[in-house]
């Protein structure tokens, strides 16, 4: 993307006024998206984002500037601007020797999105529309979206790192509305992987559409969700967001360092049920959060965060790792070249336990079975979190019974982790997600086996 000699000169300019560290992050991203709604392909969109962000660190201060101009002149201007932002004084010359570093090989792309005709992509949406509408007479509306992106990144810094990565992602999502006597209900499905169009060799979009329709139809007869604290069983692959919110964010070293996490100072302590081993894994092939390198040039890693209930480590980016004098963990990510990196998750999941999923339900006298969770959010300082149930059922006498209307689940992260009392042997990853932090969104994955939390608060309206 950029010549090594140019990078060396740009980094030299960035540290000329005496900075400790400088970095060039260049990105070239092409994307295509298409949307279907109300029976029509509404629009195909093509996008191009290309530019570089330059970061200069002096002491505890970071200066940052970005430019859409990848010429040497454009980069030098941005470097000078970032350097001025980081520092007012100093002086000195440093020459940087860049050494190419390989990322983790996470997958191989078989069919690049730009090699696939747009008509073929649009056809997926038509199939989704048709499959969902033929799932039942009550289906009144379908919307669907297709998206792909090919993102090339390059990172060079004054520690001598030079690394490149290509991240290809494909995504399809759909929402279906069913109409019944008691109003409208919605069902959702999506699939996304870090590969090209070959994703659709194994992902059947019509199956997804039928599943979204089934969800909307089943909710037509849903009862109001209960209100209050009950045992909650979460179906495999549908509740990874629980861990993302309940503890994932709290294990991000930037929040920990500022004392804005309930998990601060808890390394080596029992923070969860001994059943729980939690991993953040950027190397997980084809999953939505997979990366070869993070956005600071560090190879992605498999990091154990909680082992048998004991907090083993936090997640790290360059700045926090440097401060603590320890290695990075491949979790320095950013939305685009216009953003500063920070500590972010990749694919976060809980490893298998030993319980049979059927047994977990049978052993629950009464409670709620969550088949799909929606988005959520957490206050990392208190651990209080909330997320929506988009598909849930009552459990009565050890059996899954009536569907429930939507509601939020709330809890406290550390408490819920301790309250996990059954863990299934049926691990699955969940839907592709976008994690938002400080205004930046990055693709993340999550997963878990079927599990039970002995008490969580359901925010329904039924007594």
């Amino acid at each position, binding site marked *: 993307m950029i010549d090594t000699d140019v990078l060396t000169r740009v980094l030299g300019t960035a540290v000329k006024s005496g900075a400790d560290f400088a970095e060039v992050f260049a990105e070239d991203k092409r994307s295509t998206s298409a949307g279907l709604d109300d029976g029509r392909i509404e*629009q195909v969109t093509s996008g191009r984002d290309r530019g570089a962000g330059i970061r200069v660190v002096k002491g505890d201060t970071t200066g940052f500037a970005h430019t859409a101009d990848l010429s040497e002149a454009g980069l030098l201007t941005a470097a000078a601007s970032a350097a001025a932002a980081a520092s007012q004084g100093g002086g000195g010359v440093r020459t940087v020797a860049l050494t190419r570093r390989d990322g983790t090989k996470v997958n191989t792309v078989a069919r690049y999105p730009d090699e696939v005709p747009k008509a073929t992509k649009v056809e997926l949406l038509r199939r989704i529309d048709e499959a969902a509408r033929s799932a039942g007479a009550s289906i009144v*509306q379908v919307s669907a979206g297709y998206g792909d992106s090919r993102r090339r990144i390059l990172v060079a810094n004054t520690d001598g790192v030079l690394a490149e990565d290509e991240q290809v992602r494909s995504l399809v999502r759909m929402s279906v509305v069913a109409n019944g006597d008691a109003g409208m209900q919605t069902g959702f499905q999506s699939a996304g992987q870090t590969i090209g169009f070959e994703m659709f060799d194994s992902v059947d979009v019509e199956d997804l559409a039928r599943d979204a329709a089934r969800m909307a139809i089943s909710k037509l007869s849903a009862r109001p969700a209960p209100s209050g604290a009950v045992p909650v069983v979460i179906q495999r692959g549908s509740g990874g967001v629980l861990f993302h919110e309940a503890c994932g964010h709290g294990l991000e070293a930037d929040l920990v360092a500022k004392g804005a996490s309930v998990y601060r100072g808890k390394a080596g302590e029992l923070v969860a049920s001994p059943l729980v081993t939690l991993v953040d894994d950027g190397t997980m092939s084809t999953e939505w959060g997979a990366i070869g390198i993070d956005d600071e040039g560090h190879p992605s890693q498999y990091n154990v965060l909680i082992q048998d209930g004991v907090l083993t480590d936090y997640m790290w980016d360059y700045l926090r790792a440097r401060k603590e004098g320890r290695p990075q963990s491949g979790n320095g990510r950013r939305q685009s070249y216009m953003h*500063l990196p920070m500590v972010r998750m990749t694919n976060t999941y809980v490893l298998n336990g030993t319980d049979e999923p059927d047994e977990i339900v049978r052993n629950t006298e009464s409670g709620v079975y969550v088949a799909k969770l929606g988005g959520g959010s957490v206050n990392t300082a208190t651990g209080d979190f909330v997320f929506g149930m988009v598909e849930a059922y009552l459990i009565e006498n050890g059996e899954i019974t009536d569907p429930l209307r939507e509601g939020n689940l709330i809890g*406290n992260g550390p408490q819920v982790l301790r309250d996990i009392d059954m863990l299934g042997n049926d691990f699955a990853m969940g839907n592709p997600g976008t994690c938002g932090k400080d205004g930046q969104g990055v693709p993340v994955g999550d997963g878990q086996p079927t599990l039970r939390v002995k008490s969580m608060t359901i*925010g329904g309206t039924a007594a």
Partner: protein
Amino acid sequence: MSFESALQHIADAVIAQAEPGEQLEAYVSRDSETDVRVYEGEIEHFVSAQSEGIGIRVIRDGRTGFAYAGTLDERAIAEVLAEARDNVVFGTPDEWAGLALPDGVPVVQQDLWNEVLAGYSTDRKIELTKELERLTLASDSRVRIDDANYSDVAAENAVATTTGIRRSGRENGCYVSVSTLADDGDETQTGFGFSVGRSPDEFDLAKAAKEAAERATRLLGATKPSSRRLTVVLDPFVTAQFLGIISSTLNGEAVIKGRSLFKDRMGEIVASPLFTLVDDPTNPLAYTATELDGEGLAARRNVLVDGGVLQSFVHNSYSARRANTGSTGNAVRGGFKGTPGVGCLALQVQPGTRSQAELVADVTDGVLVQQVSGLHSGVNPISGDFSTGASGLLISNGQIGAPVREFTIASTLQRMLLDLVEVGGDIDWLPMRAAGVSLVISDMTMSGA
């Protein structure tokens, strides 16, 4: 030549290339922003950033294609136009597709560009941020700082269409914010405060500091309340967030596509007679006041619900054509990367007369909800069901009582609007698309222990 005319020139040059039978729209924007983050008296980061880009929409034979690029490089613009044209053939022909037509509604001139901010020095921006951190720390000994921030943005854009729209504008604005943590023994709670202005001279740092400290400390010692039905008083900040959700049910596009719970309710009573909802981006007090909508039509005042009766949905030119009506000037555009959707621009509930304290004094068993979380995940604007995480203060026999947290409040949007018993007089022009005001809702479900 000013930036504005430079951008207009770029947009004009694109649409001049229209071929017979083709409608073209070019939207061009350029932003610059400054972000300062201070932590423990030092600059944690300083970001100085410029970005620009173009989005081109092509419509031919009722089909729409779109492309964008994050640069105004001439070659890139030519590529964007070619890509947008290439994308046209994949759309389904749609008899209502098309660009906005000039509708003769005059633009309400507004003062959206502030020269004081444009000339404000970097050093003073940094100093303000440090001052906010100092003031916040000084306001309560239990309070720590997560971060203190200053942000400003200057944005300029231009739009041109082959249907005769040709408009440009620029605006700038700034805000400071501070995130706080308050400790009491093992317990930590969080808060935030902010102040916005057309220029930093309008900031009220002391108020931002005080609110940030209060928000964090008021929840110390909070417990989980017992589940029950009760009266809920929504703080202005919470009301503004609910209005954001309600606005999606009044979206003309959602209505024509059968996705709004109010789709068949025009002219009917949908809310308490106390509820009058207006979208008015021409009100200069509104944070999101603007002269133009996302298609370049004049922004205008629309009464959506009048005394509880549903009066109007909001439309852009596409949804208006389908609904056989005119655009209400409610095209919204998230920058050059997308085509205009439909949305409210600056909502406000017509305020009542009494203070929040007076409203609370009439409540026998209730809760004052000061913060909600998970509203985006807990509301289904299609069915109207919602439940949201909340924290606040219990109200007993007219008296504010103990702080409570980790509970939800739930109802449906339909019921909540009908159960409204009073609107406060405490309108607050928040940095959101809706203004805040206290609301009293007579019957909601609180789920806790």
